């Protein structure tokens, strides 16, 4: 095993300890779903059409091809929300009478290898009576648009509305109203490992083990058992090493239901590995929104009121468990961001279209609302002839706790402090000078800021407030010291790249006085880990970390009790460190291994005062808290080609106590990479017929290492009072702030041309179009 950073009595929390996950991963020793051998392989035959009635499905003779007709008794996936006039749209496991998007699974071919399955799939003929599809959400909202689901009139799956009392009066009295029509194009989360599932039937027990690339093994088990109408105890779900998820792997996929059904039917093992094309057209999409946002300001550029109209294209179905309310409702709830604004009106609609279903993707709506709001602030700054930094200084919330216009309570935050930190570190005056000189040479540099708040680590009440039928929130950790003194934490969270096995070990190590190398964190198997919600929503370190600390505190208390009996000393004189209990100020000590052994094998010595064994459980369900950050981008725009190059990126952020700075930095940098994709490169493009034009990684363009700029990170570690580890989440912030900062910087660079880019990604084509239009307009007036 690779050596950890060796301790010298310092705390483990706060150290950039190397990730215990990495040695296996970088040496090709990880365990991934697609590595498992299987008897049968599945290839899904997917709809080539975006909308239409299925007339017939012709299967090649002798082939095993499953269609909806075979899946009698299997329930459709019908996520539910009890608010916002939500319409319970149902998704059949395989398309039944209609197809609703290109890529929808219509049939499952079963064969002895992936290659054979694909050969047979090529021969399956689906005859579809094609109808005109709805691709753009605005078209789906038009009067007389075809209806995609009978239960959802007007193609609206839900409608969130909010208006603060007194809004109209404040609006009418405003000195200036600034407006933005923002457009965020559709994206795919693009985890490095696409989806994969492997379902194996065990004849001895009649159970099926589903190994799959999920962020939520326990909920997948519950959901699949529900849909198939089988006892949960007959299903075991394992999330082995998972190559990234970013939200795409937290929703229930129909494909896994088919695999479990097939494993039971064939009494055998059945596997499916999604290819990149399938992932790009048929996994889950996100971020396809139109937002119109208006801000009413007083004469001093103080924001008084916001009015928002959010149109979120949710695709053909709703996703389980969050429902497709996840984007529009997040947009509505958090639109006001870090600014002090007490009047707010919002209409947020989720709109069904003939496109791939939308699901959560890292940041969920906040990259878009931050983009919209931060563009609005920059526009307002220029309307008031203010510096973008000044307008933020005038409007950021300063007094906490602060109750937002939506009723959210911001416990504490350091919006201004992180802004000032970033402003100082980037040296704005020096940049402005450089910008001016560059312009003289026909080079266009720009600087852009984004300040935002990132809600993290929220417990069940926050989800209940959304009217969710499933309210994730709490986490449980079972911590055991075994008779040899080794420590094992079984957790309900399901990390898949976040390094939780390392950070939780750091928390445990400090609490019970051992080194991390004797601690093993176990997760991702419903047979061995306690029920829990998984890893998403910047929650695991806060919630699972909190549950870990609670369990460790209990183990600590027990160890101290045992030590005080064994060492005949008062409990308050016992110190736990370096794997032993010591009596302070003496040389008397006993190792944790010895105490653990006695707790199992010499229980009579404790005269019934100490329970046998050494296993403690911690559960944590916190209120949630908000991290915050200021992102700054410096870009250079090539006005001839429209290409924007990021010269430098800087982050000043506050996520409370940092358990492991290296892992924290990794989370932020990875998020920024996705933010760069969002801002400049990544876009799922449909043609008018509903076909996807970006179905490979040459056409759908995540940034590569070469597109990553130098990134400078600053942490302001204000310990959180709302989280028992004092840590807040930071898994999403990188991608929340980056698009706004980058596009603001592009707009700053292009300010001499009077060009406004309010669309993401800001592709070179879009930038050139805007510049060309400006050139043409200038010629006309000249």
């Amino acid at each position: 095993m690779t050596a950890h950073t060796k301790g010298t009595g310092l705390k483990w929390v706060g150290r950039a300890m190397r990730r215990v996950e990495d040695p296996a991963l970088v040496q090709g020793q990880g365990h991934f779903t697609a590595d498992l051998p299987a008897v049968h392989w599945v290839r899904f035959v997917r709809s080539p059409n975006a909308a239409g009635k299925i007339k017939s499905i012709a299967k090649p003779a002798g082939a095993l091809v499953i269609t909806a007709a075979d899946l009698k008794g299997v329930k459709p996936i019908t996520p539910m929300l009890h608010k916002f006039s939500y319409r319970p749209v149902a998704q059949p496991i395989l398309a039944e009478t209609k197809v609703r998007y290109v890529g929808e699974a219509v049939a499952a071919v079963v064969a002895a290898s992936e290659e054979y399955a694909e050969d047979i799939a090529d021969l399956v003929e689906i005859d579809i009576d094609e109808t005109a599809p709805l691709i753009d959400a605005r078209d789906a909202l038009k009067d007389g648009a075809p209806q995609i689901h009978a239960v959802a009139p007007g193609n609206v799956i839900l409608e969130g509305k909010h208006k603060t009392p007194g809004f109209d009066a404040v609006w009418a009295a405003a000195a200036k109203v600034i407006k933005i029509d923002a457009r965020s194009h559709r994206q795919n989360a693009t985890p490095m490992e696409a989806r994969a599932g492997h379902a194996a039937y065990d004849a001895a027990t009649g159970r099926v083990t589903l190994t799959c690339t999920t962020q939520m093994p326990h909920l997948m088990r519950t959901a699949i058992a529900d849909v198939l109408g089988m006892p949960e105890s007959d299903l075991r779900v394992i999330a082995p090493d998972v190559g990234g998820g970013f939200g795409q792997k937290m929703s229930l996929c129909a494909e896994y239901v088919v695999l479990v059904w097939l494993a039971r039917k064939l009494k055998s093992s059945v596997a499916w590995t999604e290819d990149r094309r399938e992932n790009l057209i048929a996994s889950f999409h996100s971020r396809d929104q139109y937002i119109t946002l208006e801000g009413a300001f007083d004469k001093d550029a103080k924001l008084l009121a916001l009015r928002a109209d959010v149109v979120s294209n949710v695709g053909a179905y709703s996703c389980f468990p969050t429902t497709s309310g996840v984007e529009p409702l997040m947009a509505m709830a958090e639109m006001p961001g870090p600014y002090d604004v007490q009047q707010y009106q919002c209409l947020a609609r989720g709109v069904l279209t003939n496109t791939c279903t939308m699901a959560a993707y890292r940041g969920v709506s906040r990259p878009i609302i931050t983009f919209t709001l931060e563009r609005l602030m920059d526009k307002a700054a220029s309307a008031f002839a203010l510096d973008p930094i000044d307008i933020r200084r005038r409007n950021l919330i300063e007094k906490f706790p602060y109750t937002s216009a939506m009723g959210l309570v911001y416990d504490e935050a350091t919006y201004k402090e992180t802004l000032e930190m970033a402003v100082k570190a980037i040296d704005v005056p020096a940049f402005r000078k450089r910008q001016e000189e560059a312009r003289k040479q026909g080079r266009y540099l720009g600087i852009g800021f984004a300040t935002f708040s990132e809600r993290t680590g929220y417990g069940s009440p926050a989800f209940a407030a959304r009217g969710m039928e499933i309210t994730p929130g709490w986490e449980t950790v079972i911590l055991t010291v075994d008779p040899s003194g080794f420590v094992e934490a079984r957790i309900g969270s399901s990390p898949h790249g976040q390094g939780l096995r390392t950070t939780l070990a750091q928390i445990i190590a400090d609490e019970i006085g051992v080194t991390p190398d004797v601690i093993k964190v176990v997760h991702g198997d419903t047979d061995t880990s306690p029920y829990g919600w998984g890893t998403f929503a910047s929650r695991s370190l806060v919630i699972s970390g909190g549950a870990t600390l609670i369990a460790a505190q209990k183990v600590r208390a027990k160890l101290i009790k045992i030590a005080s009996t064994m060492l005949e000393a008062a409990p308050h004189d016992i110190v736990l460190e370096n794997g032993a209990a010591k009596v302070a100020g003496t040389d008397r000590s006993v190792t944790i291994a010895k105490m653990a052994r006695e707790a199992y094998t010499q229980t009579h010595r404790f005269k019934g005062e100490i329970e046998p064994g050494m296993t403690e459980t911690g559960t944590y369900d916190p209120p949630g808290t908000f991290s915050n950050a200021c992102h700054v981008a410096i870009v250079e725009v090539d006005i001839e080609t429209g290409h924007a190059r990021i010269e430098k990126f800087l982050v000043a952020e506050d996520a409370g106590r940092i358990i492991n700075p290296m892992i924290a930095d990794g989370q932020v940098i990875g998020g920024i990479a996705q933010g760069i994709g969002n801002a400049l490169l990544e876009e799922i493009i449909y043609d008018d017929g509903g076909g996807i034009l970006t179905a490979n990684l040459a056409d759908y363009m995540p940034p590569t290492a070469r597109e990553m700029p130098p990134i400078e990170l600053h942490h302001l570690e204000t310990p959180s009072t709302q989280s028992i580890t004092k840590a807040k989440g930071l898994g999403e912030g990188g991608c929340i702030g980056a698009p706004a900062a980058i596009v603001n910087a592009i707009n700053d660079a292009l300010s001499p041309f009077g060009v406004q880019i309010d669309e993401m990604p800001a592709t070179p084509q879009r930038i050139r179009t805007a510049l060309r239009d400006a050139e043409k307009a200038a010629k006309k007036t000249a």
Partner: protein
Amino acid sequence: MKPAPFIRHVPKTLDEALKILSEVAGQDGRVLAGGQSLVPIMAFRLAKPAHLVDINEVEGLDRITSDGKTLSIGACVRHAAFHKPVVDNPLGALLTFVARHIAHYPIRTRGTFCGSLAHADPSAEWCLVAATLDATMVAQSTRGERSIAAADYFQGIMSTALAEDELLTQVRLPLLAPDAKFGFNEFSRRAGDFAMSAALVTYTVQGGKIAGAHIGVGGAEPSPRRMADAEAALNGQAPGDKAFRAAAEAAASAIDPLEDHQTTGEYRRDLVRAVVRRALENSVS
């Protein structure tokens, strides 16, 4: 994303390769060189060749030779062979400069120069080189050998004058004058992506004036080609911003631009204008 079934033939000699190719050509038999274009297309099942004639083990195809007038590049010479100059002539430096723009390192260690020419992607750098420098393509089959001039060779998007049973055994590039200047520039959204437009220029300066200019543009039309109007705008002028801009403008207006869902003809012209001027600037810096 698994290829449809196929039979792979692994000839050891050129004669054997040509013989197999002549037999399987009619059944959608294809040459497999570096596989960096063909294999992805097969994985997407956009091509389902029944036979592959793998030329990687054919004796003698991996040679680069020069007779002092031309540089001959054999069918199995990889892109990576050009990472360092292969000939002591400005052409060697030119090929090295251009090679770095092709895809990513691992792809360059497999993909072949001739495979790129046979594949004829409108954006391929080597196709642009061949078109700009008036290369000669040598095609062989059991029917014999023939030479095809670049101007006749490219016939549209991924379409060439090669017959189904012909192997492109060699590409011949004329060496440049010892004092020749060259410049290259391309635009792509990410490093390593196919260029959305690219330009290659060569010329000499005689008495302070540009002579014998070759200006090629790739990625902007179905095939790369020399731009006569732009060359005319350059020849006889002193190298400098004014002449470069005039040539760039001439190239931009001469093209019949490729358009796609994101890229308008207007934008393609913007790019051509930029890459031609930058290639010219690059030639003097």
